[in-house]
């Protein structure tokens, strides 16, 4: 089978986020960017399925500006076989990305699409569920285990109450959680090899998808700041403060 993996270029998770002075957005110019951490887990899973003989080809897809190709190269260096770049400078919403991914699925015919459970910039947690709805496929969200046996996927989902196990029909959409695996680092030879791998390019228009945002960002602000309080010198002093000053325990 073919596996499609969706990879988003986001601000690196270690960067201290700054809001632009005009309150229009988060500053992303001259900031370190990286593959969304959940998507690294998705790429890793695809590679392991291929290594286990369950997949023949892994296609990484990214939607975004020119630089998204760097993210695709990172996926190719990890072990994806090919890339698809859908180029747009508009900040896409999950619904638009889902429509684009649907069009790519229809071109490529994968049996499995792996996505991250959420992008760490918009924190939306929507795209996988939306793609699955648009295709009328099954969905296995927030996966911390994924096993594939003839025609079905068994997914262990991380839910608020603990873990849930479901069985879903293939073709399927799976969104991955961080505990599914530990993504590998790309080796230098593989980074070199990745430079020669093919990246197909499209625009949303080529695919017949309207990416005009439905949601407008009116403003972006810094969150209220918390400041450091006091350092107490003993457990007794801590309990005393909590009891008699903050009055949060009795």
């Amino acid at each position, binding site marked *: 089978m073919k596996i499609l993996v969706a990879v988003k270029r986001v601000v690196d998770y270690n960067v201290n986020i700054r809001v632009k002075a005009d309150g229009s957005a988060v500053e992303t110019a001259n900031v370190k960017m990286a593959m969304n951490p959940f998507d690294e887990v998705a790429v890793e899973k695809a590679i392991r399925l291929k290594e286990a003989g369950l997949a023949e080809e892994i296609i990484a897809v990214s939607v975004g500006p020119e630089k998204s190709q760097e993210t695709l190269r990172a996926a190719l260096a990890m072990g994806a076989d090919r890339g698809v770049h859908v180029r747009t400078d508009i900040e896409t919403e999950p619904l638009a990305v889902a429509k684009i991914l649907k069009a790519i699925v229809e071109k490529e015919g994968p049996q499995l699409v792996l996505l991250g459970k959420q992008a760490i910039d918009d924190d939306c947690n929507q795209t996988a569920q939306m793609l699955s709805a648009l295709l009328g496929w099954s969905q296995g969200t927030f996966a911390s285990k994924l096993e594939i046996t003839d025609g079905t996927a068994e997914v262990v989902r991380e839910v608020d109450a603990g873990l849930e196990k479901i069985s879903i029909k293939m073709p399927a959409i799976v969104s991955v959680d961080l505990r599914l695996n530990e993504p590998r680092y790309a080796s230098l030879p593989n980074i070199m090899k990745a430079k020669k791998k093919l990246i197909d390019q499209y625009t949303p228009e080529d695919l017949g998808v309207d990416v005009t945002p439905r949601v407008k960002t009116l403003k972006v602000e810094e969150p209220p700041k918390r400041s*450091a309080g006091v350092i107490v010198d003993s457990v007794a002093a801590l309990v005393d403060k909590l009891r008699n000053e903050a009055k949060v325990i009795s």
Partner: protein
Amino acid sequence: MSILVVAEHDNSELKTATLNTITAAQKVGNDIDLLVVGHECKGVSEAAAKVGGISKVLVADAPEFAHHLAENVAPMLVNIAKNYSHIFAPATTFGKNIMPRAAALLDVSQISDISDVVSGDTFVRPIYAGNAIATVQSSDELKLVTVRTTTFEPVDAEGGSATVETLAGSGDSGLSSFMGQDTTESERPELTTARVVISGGRGMQNGENFEMLEKIADKLNAAVGASRAAVDAGYVPNDYQVGQTGKVVAPDLYIAVGISGAIQHLAGMKDSKVIAAINNDSEAPIFQIADYGLVADLLTALPEFLAELEK
């Protein structure tokens, strides 16, 4: 037009998250229906009819809804969506799984995890793990919204007298099936609603040491939480995790023990009223946001803490 709130429940109990979600919906309007989708969930629909501020309870009770599989529940939402201007659900794993599926079927761009309502089309939501706060306006006619429950007080669970209407099932999609679950049973309050939360991190060193936190939690009627590192290391189950990818909590008191204070952890707890931290590294970032800090080895501090509480 009226507003639909999707109730969260486990077929026997209505979850508090539903009550917080209703408060968020009330900021848009007062004509609110509550949808209970489940199986053999009569107790839940009875409880739902008593909730304050609800006009009507819609109950869809059918075997295909027993485990809230998104492939079965989303079409049900789509069927009744035309009667509503807004559909609200809690931003819990229940709501996050179902709502985007319904949104795409309805061709609506969902607004996730709102922390405030400005007007019927404008909402506030944290982005970048809460490091920025965005105010966003939807141009879709129908609004699908999930709610960060900790930022809205719950409505009264009692005092209402809504009418109850029955909806037919929508059939089994045949796409997915439930196989089992592994949940943590505990007598302690739920993590997301507890007044006090005590969490442990990698500094706890093993699962056995979490017993110290549990003993303190029992004294304080608190819930026990954890950092991702503690869950990854297998000290405690995944449902303990607080943070960007775990649960969001905002108790009156949050005690962080052996937790460094990474931004992804802070994303889940920095709206707590009072934060206390115990860590043996005085440079740990958690101290920059803690109201009370104690620089100490947790292996000695926790038994002392328990002893103080017993005094």
